[in-house]
C-alpha cells in the first residue's frame, strides 16, 4: 500500500500543469470557473489546442494518433484539467464512438472517421435513447430496413446532447424486429445532412439548450455505414457504455465545485460572520469533503487496478452512484451559499465571462447548475440501474 504517486507520475503531472498554464486561454478558464456556457466555438477552440499538443485522445492507441496513456495518467490529466478550469472535452466522438470503431470498425471506417474526429472536422452525437426507451434501452424502436445498397431509417431519438452542433450521429437501430430485444439491434453511422433528419431543441429546466430530439423520416443510409455485423449492435453499445463510464466519479468536478462553494461562503456574511465560519454550513461542507476524500481514493483504487490490466466490476456502478450524489450535494451547497442571489435568472450572465454576477461571484450559475445536474443521477445509466447492477452481481438472480 502506497498512497503516493511515482516519480514518473509526478513528472507527468508537472508537465500537464505546465501545458495548462501556458495554453489554456484565460477567458476560457474564467468562464468555466464561473459556471458559464462555452458555446460551440469555445469547445472547438479547446479541441484544437489539445490536438496540436497531441493530447486530445488520452485513451486511444498510438497507432490511431492517441496518447495511449494508462488509467493513472488519464486520471492525473483529468484532475489537472478540472483544477485549472479547462473545458470538458466533448466525449461523443473521442471517448465513445472511437473505441468502438477501433475495436469493431472496418479499416476503411477507421481510416476515414478517426482522423476527422481528431481534426474536429466531424462533431459526433449519440443516438441511443428514445421516448419509450430510457433505462430500458433495448426496447428501442427506430427501424432500419435494408433496401439494396442502403438502409431506410425511420424513428425518433431523444436526449441527444449537443446534437445541434453535430454533423454526424451514431445510432442504435432495430434491423430485426422479430428477434429477441437485444439481438435485433444494429449500430449505424448517419450523416446529419441526409434528407429526412430533423433536429428539434429540448429546453431544459435551467433554460439551457443542450439536448435535442432527432427525427428520422425515410432517411437513406449507405450500408457501408454499418459498424461491425448487422444485429450485433447491442454488443458494441455495451462496449461503448463501459467507456462512457470512465471518469464517472467526477472527482475533479467535485473538487472544483467545493472550492467554489468555500470561496463564495467566505464572502457572504451570515449572522455577523462569514458564512464559511457558520457551524451548520461548515459542517455540511465538511461532510461533503469527507465523502469526496474517500470516494476519490475508491476511484484511485479502481484506476490503479485498471492500469494493471484488470477490468472494473461493479465498482464503476458504485462510483457512478456515490460520485453523482456528492456532486449534487455540492451543487445544493453552492445554491445555499448564494442566498437570495440564487433566485435571479439572467441568461446573459450564464454565457461567456463578460457579464459579472449580480450577487457574489458564482451565484448566477448556482441554482441553474443545481437543477441541471439533477441529470447526473438520470443519464449514463440512472442510479437506479446502477444499483440493480450491483444488486444483481452481489445477490444474483433478476434485479
Amino acid at each position, binding site marked *: 500500500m502506497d498512497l503516493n504517486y511515482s516519480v514518473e507520475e509526478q513528472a507527468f503531472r508537472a508537465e500537464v500543469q505546465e501545458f495548462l498554464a501556458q495554453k489554456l486561454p484565460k477567458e476560457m478558464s474564467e468562464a468555466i470557473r464561473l459556471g458559464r456556457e462555452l458555446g460551440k466555438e469555445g469547445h472547438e477552440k479547446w479541441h484544437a489546442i489539445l490536438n496540436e499538443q497531441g493530447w486530445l485522445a488520452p485513451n486511444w492507441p498510438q497507432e490511431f494518433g492517441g496518447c495511449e496513456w494508462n488509467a493513472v495518467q488519464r486520471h492525473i490529466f483529468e484532475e489537472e484539467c478540472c483544477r485549472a478550469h479547462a473545458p470538458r472535452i466533448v466525449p461523443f466522438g473521442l471517448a465513445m464512438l472511437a473505441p468502438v470503431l477501433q475495436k469493431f470498425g472496418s479499416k476503411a471506417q477507421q481510416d476515414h472517421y478517426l482522423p476527422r474526429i481528431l481534426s474536429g472536422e466531424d462533431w459526433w452525437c449519440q443516438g441511443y435513447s428514445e421516448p419509450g426507451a430510457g433505462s*430500458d434501452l433495448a426496447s428501442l424502436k427506430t427501424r432500419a430496413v435494408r433496401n439494396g445498397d442502403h438502409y431506410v431509417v425511420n424513428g425518433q431519438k431523444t436526449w441527444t446532447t449537443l446534437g445541434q452542433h453535430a454533423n454526424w450521429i451514431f445510432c442504435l437501430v432495430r434491423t430485426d424486429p422479430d428477434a429477441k430485444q437485444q439481438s435485433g439491434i444494429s449500430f449505424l453511422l448517419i450523416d446529419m445532412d441526409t434528407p429526412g433528419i430533423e433536429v428539434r431543441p429540448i429546453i431544459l429546466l435551467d433554460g439551457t439548450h443542450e439536448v435535442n430530439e432527432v427525427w428520422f423520416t425515410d432517411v437513406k443510409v449507405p450500408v457501408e455505414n454499418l459498424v461491425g455485423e448487422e444485429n450485433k449492435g447491442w454488443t458494441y453499445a455495451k462496449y461503448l457504455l463501459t467507456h462512457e463510464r470512465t471518469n464517472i466519479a467526477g472527482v475533479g468536478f467535485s473538487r472544483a465545485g467545493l472550492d467554489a462553494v468555500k470561496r463564495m461562503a467566505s464572502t457572504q456574511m451570515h449572522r455577523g460572520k462569514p458564512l464559511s465560519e457558520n457551524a451548520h454550513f461548515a459542517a455540511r461542507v465538511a461532510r461533503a469533503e469527507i465523502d469526496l476524500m474517500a470516494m476519490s481514493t475508491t476511484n484511485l483504487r479502481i484506476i490503479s487496478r485498471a492500469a494493471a490490466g484488470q477490468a472494473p466490476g461493479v465498482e464503476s456502478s458504485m462510483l457512478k452512484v456515490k460520485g453523482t450524489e456528492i456532486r449534487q450535494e455540492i451543487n445544493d451547497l453552492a445554491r445555499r451559499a448564494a442566498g437570495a442571489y440564487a433566485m435571479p435568472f439572467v441568461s446573459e450572465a450564464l454565457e461567456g465571462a463578460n457579464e459579472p454576477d449580480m450577487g457574489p461571484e458564482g451565484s448566477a450559475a448556482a441554482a441553474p447548475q443545481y437543477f441541471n445536474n439533477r441529470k447526473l443521477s438520470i443519464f449514463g445509466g440512472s442510479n437506479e440501474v446502477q444499483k440493480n447492477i450491483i444488486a444483481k452481481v452481489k445477490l444474483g438472480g433478476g434485479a
Partner: protein
Amino acid sequence: MNFDLTEERQMLQDSLRRFLRDNQEALRASTRLGNAENSLGFDAGIWTKLAELGVIGALFSEEEGGFAGAGFDLTTVFEELGRAGAVEPLLDTAILGGGLIAALGTETQKELVEQVIGGEVHLALAHGEPNSRYDLAQVETMAKVEGDDIILTGRKAVVVNAEAADYLIVSARESGAAGDEDGISLFLVPRDSAGLTLRGYALLAGGRAAEADLEGLRLSADARLGGPGTAYAALKRATNRAEVALAAETLGAMEAATEMTREYLLTRQQFGRPIGSFQALQHRMATLLIELEQARSAVINAAGHLETSAEEQALQISAARNLVGRAGRLVAEESIQLHGGIAMTEEYELAHIAKRIVMADHRFGDTDTQLERFIDQSAA
C-alpha cells in the same frame, strides 16, 4: 379538536382551485423561463380575476378592509397557488406590501390597501440588501432628514415584483448601526420616483425581481410609514405572515409534484411493465407521501400559532420552514428522479413545480437558517 376547513374556507378553496384549473394555460404561459414578452412576470388578467374572486380580500382582516386574514385563510389561498404553480405576486403585493401599509399607514396611506384588495395596485417590499443575507435587521440603506424632505441612499437586492409595483416599500436606517432592530423606517416610494433605478430580471422559478439603486432619492416626510426608526416589529410581523404563506405555497407545490409522480409511476412502461410496479420505486413514493403529511402538519402548526406570542410564533414558523425545506427538497429531487429525463424539460409542468419548491428556500431564510432560528428560540 377539528382539522376541517370552515365552510367559508372550503368555499374559498373550491372556487380558487376551480379558477386556477380553468386558467391553467394562461398561468403556465406567464411562468415560462425568462418570458421576454411579459415585463410584469405574471398575467395581469388573472390578477384582476383573483381580486374579483375575493382571493386578495381573504388575506386581510375586516378591520383592514378585507374579510378574513387569519393564518388558515393565508394557508388556504397559498396552498392552492402552490398546487397550480402560480407565480402571481400575492405574497409581495398583499401579504408584505398590503400588510405593512395596513399595520403602519395613516388613513390616507391605507387607501392603498383598499386598492390592493381591488386588484388595482401592486406593491413590492424593498428590504433585503446585498449584504443582509436573511437578517431582517441588517439595513445599511440610509434615510437622512433634510428640512421637510427625506433623502434615501443605498441598494436593495432581489426586490420581487419591483417592476410591476406602483409603490415600493423601502426600508432605510434613520439611526443606529446596521444590524440594530431600532432605527429602521419604512417609506412609501412611487416606482417612477427620480433617484430610484431598477435593474429588472426574470427569476429562475418564475416571476420577476429587480436590483433597486437609491441615489439621493428625495421624499416628503409624509412618505414615511409609521414613526421614525420603529418599523422593525411590523416588518417582523409581515415576514412572519409571509413565511407561513410561503410554507403553504410550497406544501401545495409538493402535493402537485407527488400527484404527478404517482400518475407517472402508474403509466410509464419500461421492461414491459409500469415502473410503479418496481418495489424499489414504490418505497420511494411511500417516503414522499410520508414527508408530505409531515409538511402539512408543520404548516398547520405554524398557521395556528400566527396570533400567539412572538416567541411561540418564531418557534413554530422556523420549525415549519425547516421541515418544509427538507421535505420539499426531497420531494422536488425525487419527483424529478422518479420521472427521469422528461422532468428535466422546461416544458414539463413538474420542472416548474420543482423550481417553485426549491427556490422558495431562498426567501426569508433557508432550511439551515431556520434550524438556527429554532435552536435560538428553543434555548431562549
